[in-house]
């Protein structure tokens, strides 16, 4: 079981320490929470390795559309893309959490499914597909989950307009 050590204070010489890595992925710290930034191609392998390490439960899987916020802070070596798939894993033996943020480009919004590692992600991946249009390859049931089957568009994308209901006021002439 590898320990997560984010303590970089040992570099007394003033030289910037090499960015910390877990399973070869850049690690960042977000308000005290450990965040991993694996590449899209290594994502499933990293989740598998973490599962062997004890992160046996996938608590949450969601996505963010960063269309209007591309300048977000990311560790060195991670290229920002439009979409980000966010996975929260839970280790119930050692009582710890870890988060993965995977960059997914807009022109090829495809990522591998976690279903074979964590079957509980089935509904969550369907929700992400439904809301963001990110396709999960090898997902056993790639259909919409919350919106109707024949819906067009993916509502949580930032370029998807929120609807407006015309309001009529009493006594108005229009």
């Amino acid at each position, binding site marked *: 079981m590898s320990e997560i050590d984010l303590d970089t204070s040992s570099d007394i010489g003033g030289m910037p320490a090499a960015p910390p890595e877990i399973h070869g992925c850049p690690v960042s710290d977000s308000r005290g929470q450990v965040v991993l930034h694996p590449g899209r191609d290594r994502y499933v392998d990293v989740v598998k390795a973490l599962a062997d390490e004890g992160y046996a439960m996938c*608590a949450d899987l969601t996505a*963010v559309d960063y269309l209007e916020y591309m300048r977000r*802070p990311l560790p060195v070596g991670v290229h920002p893309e439009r979409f980000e798939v*966010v996975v929260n894993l839970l280790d119930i033996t050692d*009582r710890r959490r870890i988060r993965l943020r995977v960059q997914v480009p807009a022109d090829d919004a495809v990522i591998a499914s976690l279903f074979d590692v*964590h*079957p509980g992600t089935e509904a969550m991946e369907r929700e992400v597909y439904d809301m963001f249009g990110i396709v999960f390859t090898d997902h056993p049931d790639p*259909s919409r989950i919350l919106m109707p089957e024949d819906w067009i568009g993916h509502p949580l994308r930032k370029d998807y307009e929120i609807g407006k209901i015309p309001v009529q006021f009493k006594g108005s002439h229009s």
Partner: protein
Amino acid sequence: MSATTIRDEGAQEMRTRSELTARELLREVGSVLRMSEAEAAKLGDLPDDPDEDQTMIINMGPQHPSTHGVLRLMLELQGETVLRCKPIIGYLHTGMEKTGEQLTFMQGGTNVTRMDYLSPLNNELVFSMATEQLLGIDGDIPERAVWMRMLLSELNRMSSHLLFMATNGMDLGAVSMMIYGWREREEVLRFFQKVTGLRMNHNFIRPGGVAADLPPGWRDDVLRLLEVIPERLDEYDILMTGQPIWRERLQGVGVITPDEALALGATGPILRSTGVAWDLRRDLPYLHYDQVDFDVIVGSYGDAFDRYAIRLNEIRESMKIVRQILDVMPMGDYRIQNKKVTPPPRARIDESMEALIHHFKIFTEGFKVPEGEVYVGIESPRGEVGCYIASDGSPTPYRMHVRAPSFVNIQCLPHMMRGGLVADAVAVISSVDPVLGEVDR
């Protein structure tokens, strides 16, 4: 619209066996889960590939009274036996996560509180905790506010489980139980009304603390609750726990194994019914749960009866916590005195122009939250409710996602129902205790 939207969207409904590939069928009957040989053998009495003439796919819901809202299940039956089950959801989807991106952090509580409408205070709590972590003020919340949050959270757990007692009884034919459960829940809601002004959807726990102080006489009200409810719970024991018909209906129904529950991401009473003692209040403590003494109730069989018994005893544990909170409730502020997030007191507005402007700006524009992203998970009555917020430095969340326990737990239904009787389907749905407002959001 990008090119990815022009795809075969795929049907949501359950299809007949002849239309499915072998892999899809294996998934639907649960073979992909890490199942032991012994467990697989137990399912062996089901036909491997029944003749399609002998099976029937029926709809249950979305307007079925026992589906707790608008849950639709498609069941493949052979006679009375359920071979496959597929939950179909989305009938209550109102785009609350999209709405959450339009509302400021100040207004966000009104949105999240409507997701799990049976435990609104827990939803508000997790949203407030995530916002406070982004603001970096999570360590500065006044003691009184923290203990008030715990008090309300535990009372909310009681009201939610009491409603479960009512609906579970009603679904299984113990109709008098329905009246009793609602009656006791109303006692708790009356306290909420006195404290927050509303029975449900309170928007009372807000970033920085709570909206108001406890009203005079609150201690007597809580003590009265703690006096009334234990007697009523003993009545439930007579009415249900020890009653042979009740046990016959629930014992051995809807069994799920620890491995299955973990693989499916189930949390809360479902995971605990399998014997896995996992409760975020004890294992990843938040608020001051590490300072109170309580037991985590676990089951051993993972059946519907265990889930019922866990919830019944969790009401007792919550009362134990509430009693300890009464002893330690400190005096002091009920919200953080941080000008950034806290509006000025009402009296100041009459005498100070700056206070008036400050008050106006904080309610119209909201307060800016620093860039960053954070995930907070707490134990709601149904399991882990989580809130993931990404902020771009503006007064509204860039993305606000709620990890709804019911949404994940509902994936357990096909595994619990397989091989059971169609009459037990109602008991299984009821024992998962889904709240459809939270499933669909």
